[in-house]
């Protein structure tokens, strides 16, 4: 195992040039340390980046909330900016993992680890967050919606790192929001499924809706067929059978040690209904 600790961000980019192919970036270590221990990471170089403070912190620039990739969940939860600007996003993360993990796990790490069950992703998806990717000489923005391409696959190249996550300051303003994680217990639990949604209602009609699910596909994604079906529908016109049919297009739940596909499907359906009926 090759372990590299760069002295600064420019030094990191310099050194990255010396390593082709897959590499890992160690920040809080809540995922990577386990992968090292279980020998899922063997020969790939590991770059320690947790001391690169320019990648940490929360700020508002113009109409955007910028969350540095190394910002921990504890920092997100205790941020006055997020409490004021994105309270739904912030409150939804309170039950993430456990207080211990919240203080080390970072938002960038959670995105890069690209677990289908990552708690934060359904939220970022409905809030149309963007990921800023950095290389030595370039930066580019990728909407989180286009970031993943398959199970543990993403558009980020091996010489790129996640610099920050950008969310519009009004992303949840005037939206009715819903987030629910279904796990086996109250804390320290991997989601069996998670659903995030925001919508606008006029009288009883849904004028706009965004729904994203975690742990129900090879990577978390928006439920676009379901969104299209629900859009401009009156609440009372939503038919169970039709909703079920459209949802079948959007999710591919599986049976594993943790849960069963039929359970996951039906609970997802129940949560969508719960979301809509809670307003």
């Amino acid at each position, binding site marked *: 195992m090759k372990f590299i600790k760069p002295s600064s961000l420019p030094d990191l980019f310099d050194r990255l040039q010396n390593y082709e192919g897959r590499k890992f970036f160690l920040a809080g270590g809540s995922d990577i340390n386990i992968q090292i221990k*279980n*020998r899922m990471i063997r020969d790939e170089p590991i770059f320690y980046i947790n001391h690169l403070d320019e990648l940490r912190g929360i700020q508002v620039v113009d109409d955007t909330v910028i969350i540095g990739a190394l910002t921990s969940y504890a920092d997100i939860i205790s941020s006055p900016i997020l409490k004021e600007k994105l309270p739904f996003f912030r409150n939804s993360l309170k039950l993430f993992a*456990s207080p211990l993990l919240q203080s080390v796990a970072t938002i960038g790490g959670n995105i890069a680890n690209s677990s289908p069950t990552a708690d934060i992703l359904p939220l970022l998806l409905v809030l149309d967050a963007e990921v800023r990717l950095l290389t030595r000489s370039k930066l580019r923005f990728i909407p989180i919606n286009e970031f993943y391409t398959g199970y543990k696959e993403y558009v980020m190249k091996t010489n790129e790192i996640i610099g920050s996550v950008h969310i519009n300051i009004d992303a949840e303003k005037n939206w009715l929001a819903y987030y629910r994680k*279904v796990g*086996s*217990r*109250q*804390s*320290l*639990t*991997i989601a*069996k499924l998670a659903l995030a949604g925001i919508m606008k209602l006029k009288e009883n009609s849904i004028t706009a809706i965004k729904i994203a699910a975690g742990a129900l596909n090879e990577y978390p994604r928006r439920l676009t067929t379901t969104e299209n079906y629900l859009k401009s529908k009156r609440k009372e016109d939503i038919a169970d059978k039709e909703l079920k049919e459209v949802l079948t297009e959007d999710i591919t739940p599986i*049976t*594993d*040690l*943790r*849960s*069963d596909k*039929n*359970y996951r499907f*039906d*609970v997802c359906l*129940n*949560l969508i*209904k*719960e979301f809509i009926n809670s307003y």
Partner: protein
Amino acid sequence: MRSPRKVDARSKINGSHKFIDDYIFPDMIYGYLYYARCHHGYIRKITFPEEFDLKNFIIIDYKDIPGRNIVPEPEPDQPFLVENEVYHYGQIIMGIAHPNKAILKQFVEKIEIEYEELTALTDIKECLEDESNAFGREIIIDQRQSLEPRSEWIKTSAVYYTAHQEQAYLETQGMIAIYNQDQRSIYVLGTMQCPYFVKEAVEMIMGDKITEVVIETAEGIGGAFGGKEDFPNILAGVASLLAYKAEKPVKIVLERSDDIVITTKRHPSRVEIETYTDPVTNKIRKLKIDYRLDAGGYLTLSPVVLSRGVLHSFGGYNIRDVFIHGRLLRSNTPSNGAFRGFGAPQAFFAIESHIDKIAGDLKIDPLELRMKNILQKDDRMPTTQIIREDHILDCLNRVIEKSDYKQKYIEFQEYNQHHDNKKGIGISICFHGGGYTGNGEKVLQSKVKMTIEKDAAVNIYVANTDMGQGAHTTLAQMVSETLDHPLNKTRVVIPNTSKTPNSGPTVASRTIYIIGNLLCDLSLQIKKEIQGNLDEYVRSHNTLFPKEYSRCFTPDPTVVFDDKTYLGTGYKDYSWAACVCEVFYQTSIFKLDLKKIWTVLDIGIPVNPKIAEGQVEGGLLQAMGYALTEYFYKPDFGRMHGFTDYILPTTLDTPEMDIEFIHTDSDFAKGLGEIPMNYPAPAIRNAFHHATGIFIDEIPLTPERIYENIKGKS
């Protein structure tokens, strides 16, 4: 009744308390248990990775065993190391040691074994359903009264299932073995419940190559719950053989991912119950139980788990016509073993669920049915043992009163008619026999020893270990209070078989009840001798000290148990308990949560109420996990490899607990360790039944199981 602080509290908090992995000896090397990755088959070929120099490794298999390849305790039927036929996944084939842990790990990962696979039985239900899998040791209690069921009697029958449960001790299994060539002796230091079992195991595997074996426990034992009753025997055996061959100290500490795969679990069960109840009197007239456990690959502890299970299977009820059949079934999975409760949690899950099923058939409140049939003063258990007091009735009455059960039972039914989410309330009652079953304590003949030093310090020597349950604090407190001597001058010495007498294993809720009370007897004997203050006496008779005192357990001659008919006094003293559980069921996600549990226990006089309360809290939480989330095996997916998917409750899941001790007859401390594990699961199940009207005969009540049950019916 006082609650002095645990003697190990400070050192455990500041981190100075030493657990097995904290010990290092000069030249110590590291060992690994290489186990089978095959459920059943013959070993055809073992290939070691070529890139390593085999000379640097110490490798032992069954051919290296100088003594006998059989683990002596508890049932001598399991080999230390596989000879040819692998009987279950996780069975140990070789011991391997190397000075460098990382190299050892890389080496063992690359070992390849070719197996000739044979048919294997690994599915729990497949094992439990098929009577032809039975292997030995069946138990029958036949108290049939040639009573023909009347046509108006209500017949209720059902089959109840429980799953594996992992002990989940915080500290994994670990041993260090040191061979002394000059003295031909072996010293083993480790984390264990039963030093003398371990001693026998090391003597067995080493045979005449050694003349002395000394077993000592580490300063700290990080939890056990039964999991360190029999597995340490194998581990110590293999570690000793490695140390003998290496002529160096060998440390083996299991990684969690290995520990969870190869060590013992609670037995899965299938319990079929058939009853006939008179609908006029609401009296249960006939009871028939078929109690089965999946023992795993070898018998080991299963026969004794079975006997305790059978002797608790009839529950706290006065039923005269009883037939109980207990059996062990064999599968190609690691042997199941001891776990807090020892067959009783399975028994009570079945009988206490069944009582609610009968109540459903009779359309009455389950409380009313319990009150009609509960064991009262002068009633007889089916084993013919007579009950001297209204122990369990008092517990039940008190818990019903405290929890406001009667009001809530009606209130929740009303609430549930108007709400999507449901509330429910359920009861269970229970008992647990203290100490070894039947004639066990007579056979054990436990001995204890105390020394009084020149400075009047009192040292207590017992083989019972403190694994975090606070036994050494409580035992020292019992001696200190009886002798009227300061607690800070009274201590339990870390068990070491070279100086500690054999006071039996640390199991069966016997440590305080048998050993503690034996120490009290010895203390009274000393008190009689000194006639006054111990400090003063030692000062004035200083030449007599240090002095050694000892005492052996004397069985009560009136206690008689017939090992053939299983009639008589199963246990001399029982602890009793009742509980009420309040649950909340979230319909949209099919999830059941335990909100509050009230429990009232009669454990005689608790020595240290704070420690006793801690034991009950831990047991209740462990039982909640058993009832709601913990399963270890899933068909098509096999067994789990860690705590990511094996779901233990966390602090946030902990329900509100209301714990009260009452005492009905005994003016001494009775067994406590296991009973809180026995009864919450059925009460939670019964509360779910009350909340939803859905009768599920199996735990854990995971959302997926509840979902399947609802879907299966619609």
